[in-house]
């Protein structure tokens, strides 16, 4: 099995990119979630090396907990307010969880697998696991691994009722990684290889899947830190790797996370081209 390296990563909380007229046209019907995910993926692709990989050799793996939850409610609004026969087909088609992945495939010309995975635990890690499998077994040479969440007043209200002031609503936005099959032509440069990723989910009180109370991550055995927002695990993981990137990542990198709903570990190592 081929080694898999992380070629680029980007995270954003909302729209932090200049939308070209062409992109605005392509995204005219898209909801915020899709816009954030597309913008974030665009920034990641921009900084990824190896510009030309055939579209068939690229896949997209999108993981999300709640997906376009508010778009579904906007659709429901048209049903409740305007009645049957008056609902918006555009909102309906954008209320499915794989709407964002469809846009990613269209906008970035991805013709390989496009898979959306839904989990309340760590959907970004689940998507990463599937993407690593697809790259290491040769199904694709490159994968875009992404996650994204949008704010939902309904879920925030439920979270506050369940966890009181402990509940953290957000931050929301998107995280994108580009992972590649490691190839010899990348001479001389250091690359971050994914050595091992393991996710073990365990049963817990369903409320915790929303409140995430008791979720704690640690990096190379140092300082445990609390995360409570729905995307915090993906943000903090990406942040830790980026911090370690500036030449200091000589040692192996081990990131792990624990919560009442399970645990996960990601091991990375530097390899030389």
């Amino acid at each position, binding site marked *: 099995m081929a080694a898999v390296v992380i070629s680029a990563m980007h995270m954003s909380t909302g729209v932090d990119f200049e939308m070209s007229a062409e992109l605005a046209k392509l995204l005219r*019907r898209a909801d915020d979630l899709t816009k954030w995910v597309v913008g974030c993926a665009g920034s990641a692709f921009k900084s990824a090396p190896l510009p030309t990989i055939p*579209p*068939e050799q690229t896949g*997209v793996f999108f993981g999300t907990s709640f*997906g376009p*939850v508010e778009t*579904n*409610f906007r*659709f*429901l609004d048209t*049903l409740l307010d305007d009645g*049957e*026969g008056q*609902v918006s*087909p555009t909102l*309906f*088609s*954008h*209320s*499915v*969880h*794989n*709407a964002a*992945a*469809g*846009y990613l*495939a*269209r906008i970035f*010309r*991805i*013709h*390989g*697998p*496009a*898979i*959306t*995975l*839904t*989990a*309340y*635990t760590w959907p970004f890690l689940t998507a990463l*696991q*599937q993407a690593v*499998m697809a790259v290491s*077994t040769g199904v694709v040479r490159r994968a875009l691994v992404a996650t994204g969440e949008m704010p939902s007043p*309904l*879920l925030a*209200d*439920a979270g506050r*009722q*369940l966890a009181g002031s402990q509940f953290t609503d957000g931050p929301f936005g998107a995280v994108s990684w580009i992972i590649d099959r490691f190839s010899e032509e990348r001479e001389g440069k250091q690359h971050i290889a994914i050595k091992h990723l393991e*996710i*073990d*989910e*365990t*049963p817990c009180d*369903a*409320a915790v*899947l*929303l409140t995430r109370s008791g979720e704690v991550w640690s990096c190379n055995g140092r300082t445990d830190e609390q995360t409570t927002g729905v995307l915090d695990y993906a943000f903090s993981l990406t942040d830790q790797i980026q911090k370690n990137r500036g030449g200091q990542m000589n040692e192996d990198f081990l990131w792990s996370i624990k919560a009442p709903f399970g645990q996960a570990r990601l091991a990375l190592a530097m390899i030389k081209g």
Partner: protein
Amino acid sequence: MAQPVNKKRSVTITGMGCISAAGRNVEEHFYAIEQGVRNCQQVPAWLFNTQQAYPVYPASQEALTEIGHKLLDTVGAGVSTHSLGRTALLMLSAVAEAMDMAGLTIKDLQKKRVGVAMGTTVGCAFNNEDYYKSFRQGDHPGLNPVIDYLNGNLAYLLQNILGTRGPSLVVTNACASGTDAIGIAGDWISSDLCDVAIAGGADELSRIAYNGFISLQLTDLLPCRPFDRDRQGLNLGEGAGIVFLEKGEDVVRRRIFPLGWLLGYGICADAWHPTAPHPEGQGLLRAVTLAAERAGTGLAFDLINAHGTATRANDIAETNALAAFLVGHEKTPIISTKGITGHTLGAAGGIETILTLSALRRGSTWGTAGCVNIDPDFRIAPQNQSQKIELSGKIGLSESLAFGGGNSALILEAC
């Protein structure tokens, strides 16, 4: 009984279970296909209230079958059927049948690494209208619907009910979800990520998706007519279709009869449009080609179970792709089973995998229920409903298309 174990046949299907408007187990489904039973009706009041006249294919009101009840009884306390949504109950009914067929008990499973890959569409959305209505008026309704929603992740739920551990995910690739879940689970087995994989899809009829499809003008006021020149759209259905996958050598060791093998899986994005398939079915053509390459079967299929939803756009795109794919094999029998089950969304790929494998095992099946006059515009002709088809071999293909431009295909061999 010794079966040849080679790499190609490493992913063995040892159990299958399904439930839909066509029946409450695999056998009833096959009977419905043989007899051309089409349980297509106006939306029953017990499902939801609607003024719309578009018919649907509802599964039985009691979504949990006898064997499903037995499974929950074995698990004992802690699982209350009240807190389980209809989608979850449909899934459990199919899981129980498949588990029984595979000759596995919960105790057996708890000793193994069990992967769960489930496809759904409705099952992942918060669809409690009463809660939402009251919330948007500024009230704080009781939180039970939110808790049920959080409890409703099908893969997490099933692992917790069975008390098993292993890779676990829910695929939400719209109408191709069930097919993708089985394809992913097959990859887990061949990569030795688990010993047993439980895979397929489940979905219930919901007022929300029902109105959504109507607004897209994709539904027919009559029972659907896949591949017919007069087809006007799909009818929604509901159900679940689940298979158990195991490694070839484990099946030999357990001395059980395999039902068949999963030989190949292909998935490719259209990168085209949010709701319409690529008119030439380009993504589908790539997906079936990829699946065939991985399976190493060439193009000699004995049966193709198409997506065949009966929308104008799907059926033309799909036959275009198949015409380009089956060069030199234009006589391959092509059918759609949507006229028997309705379009069960995330469950469709699971149910159709089972119907394909069942037909291949029996060596015969029937043409497309609801199709009288094949659309003359098609470049390749599927089988219409008057035809009984004798199959010449054991290898078949089941395919799915989805919103967002998803295309997926599984290649199956019957034992």
